[in-house]
């Protein structure tokens, strides 16, 4: 009986994709300028934003949704949702494979459970875009992706299948029992060796694909057989190396989890040696490196504001975000990875803690979970702000989104409307 009611309610709440929607908000934060009083967002049948403005007339045929405050759908710059399931049992934990310390071949798209309840849970608080994938915990844990918090399958959800490669420079990646890596220096040695191997692999392929450039001395004698070289068998494919080559070529960043100053320095040193794009993940002590991070354009996927300050993250602060903002470092606030309770954090709450306790203030905190996150992830052409042509992703609240006693009253993803936090699984799971 109850279950039937729930299904009915959910059906009502989730309007069919493709409906035209008008969101009316007393205050509309577009993140494209000042907030708009009595703002209206018109979302077309294609799921894209058509118009944004104050007191816009709503054309006929649009379903109207009203709220006190609306913002762009929230963008979580780093999470593991979909890989780290609700129950926290082996059957639903796919964030890292402990069999080996270096596994760059693992892809988030092969591990993402679009129907895990926690995906719906964070959506209920306004989160519409997540950068998710393998968690910190091993030296290289795997590839990450960017997805929308909707859909039955990963194919429905994903918008960037290969966003970056996740690495960890922290004692949490050390292994006991005489296994490597057992120290910080060993972690660096292993990463350097792996990247050197990838350089060699890249050279082999370059040579195969561009034989003439690689062998200028061959011209004199081999003219008659010149064409034969191209028929040579290609080098054997190596999935691990392929991922690392993408990093070396700058196609994807190496996302390095580091909290302690020495680990952050190691990440910068490694990037110097191999010239890859570095994104710093967590970064508890990263304000010590503000100048370098700013000068080198290294973005910080900043630790959840309320993350537990124990172990190598014991130097983190509610004020880290404000310090980075004051120093002009590019950053966004993440919800991160949790191994226990709570199984996910909600980036809305982490932004709120930075806004309040952390002194970041409302607008800068909202940027850190919308447009600034979208820019770091390179998806700001689609999400992160409310602007004609972008995806119709909107989060609706009954007050200041960061206030503890406010509710998210609905979430829209590309014109598909979902319930807010109170519509999350009212029945017993």
């Amino acid at each position, binding site marked *: 009986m109850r279950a039937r009611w729930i299904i009915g309610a959910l059906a009502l709440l989730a309007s069919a994709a493709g409906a035209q929607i008008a969101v009316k908000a007393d205050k509309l934060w577009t993140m494209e300028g000042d907030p708009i009083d009595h703002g209206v967002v018109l979302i077309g049948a294609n799921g894209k934003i058509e118009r944004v403005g104050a007191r816009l007339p709503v054309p006929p045929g649009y379903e109207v949704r009203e709220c006190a405050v609306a913002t762009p759908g929230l963008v979580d710059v780093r999470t593991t949702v979909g890989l780290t399931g609700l129950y926290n049992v082996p059957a639903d934990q796919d964030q890292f494979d402990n069999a080996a310390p270096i596994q760059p071949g693992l892809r988030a798209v092969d591990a993402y459970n679009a129907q895990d309840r926690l995906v719906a849970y964070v959506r209920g608080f306004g989160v519409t875009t997540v950068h998710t994938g393998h968690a910190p915990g091993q030296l290289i844990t795997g590839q990450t992706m960017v997805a929308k918090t909707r859909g039955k399958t990963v194919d429905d959800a994903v918008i960037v299948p290969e966003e970056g490669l996740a690495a960890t420079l922290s004692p949490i990646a050390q292994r006991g029992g005489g296994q490597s890596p057992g120290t910080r220096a060993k972690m660096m040695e292993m990463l350097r060796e792996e990247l050197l191997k990838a350089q060699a692999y890249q050279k082999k392929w370059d040579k195969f694909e561009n034989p003439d450039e690689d062998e200028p001395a061959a011209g004199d004698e081999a003219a008659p057989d010149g064409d034969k070289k191209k028929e040579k068998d290609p080098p054997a494919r190596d999935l691990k190396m392929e991922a690392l080559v993408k990093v070396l070529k700058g196609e994807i960043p190496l996302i390095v989890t580091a909290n302690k100053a020495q680990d952050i320095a190691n990440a910068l040193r490694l990037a110097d040696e191999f010239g890859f794009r570095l994104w710093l993940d967590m970064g508890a002590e990263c304000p010590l490196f503000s100048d370098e991070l700013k000068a080198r354009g290294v973005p910080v996927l900043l630790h959840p504001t309320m993350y537990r300050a124990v172990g190598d993250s*014991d130097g983190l602060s509610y004020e880290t975000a404000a310090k980075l903002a004051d120093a002009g470092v590019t950053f966004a606030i993440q919800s991160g990875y949790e191994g226990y309770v709570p199984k996910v954090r909600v980036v809305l709450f982490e932004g709120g803690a930075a806004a309040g306790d952390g002194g970041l203030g409302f607008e800068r905190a909202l940027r850190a979970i919308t447009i600034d996150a979208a820019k770091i992830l390179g998806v700001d052409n689609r999400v992160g702000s409310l602007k004609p042509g972008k995806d119709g992703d909107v989060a609706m609240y009954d007050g200041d989104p960061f206030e503890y006693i406010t509710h998210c009253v609905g979430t829209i993803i590309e014109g598909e409307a979902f319930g807010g936090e109170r519509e999350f699984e009212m029945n017993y799971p």
Partner: protein
Amino acid sequence: MRVPTLAMGVCCLAAAAIGLAGPAAAQSKPTAYVNAHIIPVDAPEIDRGYLLVRDGKIARVAEGALAGVAGDEIEVIDCQGKVIMPGLIDTHSHIGGIGGADGSGPIQPGVRVRDSINVRSSGFRRALAGGITTQNIMPGSGHLSSGQTVYVKLRFRKGEDAEGVRTIDDITYWTDDAKSGERRPMGGLKMANGTNPQRDGGASGFPETRGKAAFLVREQFIKAQEYQRKLDAAKNPDGSVDESKLPERDLDMETLCEVMRGERVVHHHTHRHDDIMTVLRLAEEFHFRVVLHHVSDGWLVADEIAKAGAPVSAILVDAPGGKHEAVGLRFETPAILERAGVLTAVHTDDWITDSRVFLRMAALAVRGGMTREGALKSVTLAGAKILDLDDRIGSLTPGKDADFIVLSGDPFSVYTVVEQTYVEGRLAFDRSDAEDHLYAVGGVGAVHDVSPYYCCYDQWLGEGE
């Protein structure tokens, strides 16, 4: 000695003056905190009034301007724009590097957590930064009973005797036995059911199943009933004790007998609805007073909890899950329990949640539908009742200890911070002080002498099950 900086608002300036005056002066000279919004908790909120403190006790709470006290006899602190409410009471915390029972067996009530606490842990200073002035510090939930808990008052003081807290004894709540005159530390007994105390393979006598867990607990209580009969048999008709008839002392049995005589409350970790019912069943069988802790599924059996008359100390975390028992966790639980008539507190379970944002949990209870009044009580008076300390703390009532906090705004706003925490009338935390600020916001050096709550740290790191 460090003196709080004088850079901040009026509240801080006057607070610094108290610090300079020294403890004796601060104790003897009454202090009035005026022009504040006051939340007494046991009475309606006062939009603009004052709080008068004398000798570490609350002397008066009243609306309007300070009256009836000679001006030169009194320190006056202007709290314009501030909110004053009672110091917060955390009915379930694990700070101070706690250790209780070891791996030798599942039921060890004779073990006392107070024998393990490091008062220099920054956890205490961070708790003060969150406005907490009283805690129930408990051993973990990895046993059916991991030992005795201890009630502490965070009597850390800024100023001349900042080093005044040297051992756990300096912060313990003591009770004076009326008959013997014996001074005894206050605390309950920690028990747990569900998956935490279960161990695969049944090593060292730990249960593998729920049925076995309840069986093991009943066995011990029945043994304790026998022990109590021997104690009773040693009593002479005139009330004196015939020592020759006393059984050999047994620390576990003594503790369980205290529990069955109602002298020691059971603080019971329990999440799932059926586990909650098992606790109530055992409490009925052995007549012990019980507080239900965590109760992720409490909303499913709220009426049953109300009927049993058991108070609840609930936890809200940012998402359900992380363990099977907590998949039903909801922000609505405190509201549903409140409506059912259950005395409901919330707790930090620090480090499961952070003491510095304890008020946030009460606010999340409001988000889930609890009344403002109920949520204010959930971090003050309800906790005081649960710890049998409501005659001393929990509300701004004349005669109670002057444990209170000064907030920058409404207690349930994300933009509000705890500016000062006072314990027994004296400043224990001041956000405008550089060291206290570090404890409040965190950063390099903010965490020292901290051992993570051992029950779950490995799991959190991904090394556990």
